[in-house]
């Protein structure tokens, strides 16, 4: 039997921790934008993102991709820790006991509120050992130069380390579709590092997402 008093006794219901009006705060006197926990956040103009890509390309050539990916991994490592701390604290629940849907909802809302675009997690290939992440309106896909290949290396780096830490496995992330190339969304495949090695080469060969995914899934049973 459900008792209404028990339900209402919980002074806090699981609302949206990342709701923009509650999450983004600031000390405008000091020119500081902060999140509700007091961590500093920043508004980045798109020209700066463009400049970062251009500058890296100029100085490091093809290595720019690796630099960006590694930056993403560094960012992702710290983002993961902060993110988990924040939601465990707010919802008074250790991560281990949190429903996966709540965790992924938090990640989606966090992504949106920070202005990084939208994020969707597609678990339909979980059985085959792959997680698909789909983003739209990425500032990086919009501002990167025309490299004629997927360009969201920062995000790929972030996803690789984020999900590695979440699962405790050594995971890699490869982007297979990109809005900079006219696709409807940016698609990232997350999976075990040694299984995804082949995917990198297929992206280099301009193979499409469905072909890459099919080949990756066949690998296991092959």
């Amino acid at each position, binding site marked *: 039997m459900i008792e209404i008093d028990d339900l209402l006794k919980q002074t806090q219901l*699981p609302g949206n921790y990342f709701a923009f009006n509650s999450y983004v705060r600031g000390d405008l006197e000091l020119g500081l934008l902060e999140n509700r926990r007091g961590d500093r956040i920043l508004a980045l103009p798109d020209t700066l993102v463009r400049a970062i890509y251009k500058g890296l390309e100029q100085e490091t050539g093809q290595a720019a991709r690796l630099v960006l990916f590694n930056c993403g991994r560094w960012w992702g490592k710290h983002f993961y820790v902060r993110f988990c701390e924040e939601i465990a604290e707010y919802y008074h629940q250790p991560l281990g006991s949190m429903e996966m849907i709540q965790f992924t909802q938090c990640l989606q809302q966090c992504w949106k509120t920070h202005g990084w675009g939208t994020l969707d997690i597609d678990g339909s290939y979980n059985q085959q050992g792959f997680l698909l992440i789909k983003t739209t309106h990425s500032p990086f896909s919009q501002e990167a130069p025309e490299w004629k290949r997927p360009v969201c290396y920062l995000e790929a780096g972030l996803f690789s380390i984020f999900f590695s830490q979440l699962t405790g496995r050594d995971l890699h992330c490869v982007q297979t579709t990109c809005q900079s190339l006219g696709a409807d969304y940016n698609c990232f495949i997350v999976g075990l590092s040694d299984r995804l090695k082949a995917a990198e080469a297929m992206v280099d060969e301009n193979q499409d997402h469905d072909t890459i995914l099919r080949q990756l899934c066949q690998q296991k049973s092959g």
Partner: protein
Amino acid sequence: MSSDVNSLLTQAENRYLKPEELQEFKRHTSTLAQRLKIYEFLRDREAVIFEPIVEKLQTAFPEAQQPLVEKSLQHWILIMRHCAMAMLLDDTDYLKNNVLDWLRGFVKTRQSQTIETKIHELLLARLQEMLSPKAMIYLEDNLNLAKDTLLANSD
């Protein structure tokens, strides 16, 4: 504050507001006392509002798992609190920005659409019993928006 009233702030950057611009603000403040009263009513009678809903829900879904029903009820307690705040702030986007997008994912994953629809139906009926039609005007649209958003097929 509602987005309409907020936009007045931008317009008033360099000058006083014109009479017709001030009308929106006057409407906002003239209904404030009434909205406060309704807000306090909803706050003080939260348990009374939901108690019969909980009973009727369990009768309607005797086979459903208790945790699932509880979670759906939690959604609507949350929605109700946000509707009350949206009314107080006179902000039409408040609900959407703060809670509906968030809850939609849960409903879709837990497949609780039928239960959620029933709670919405019971909640509207219960509020209509307890509030005047004039008061319901402040809440009905947002509650219907909540139901439509939670149940919308998103793919």
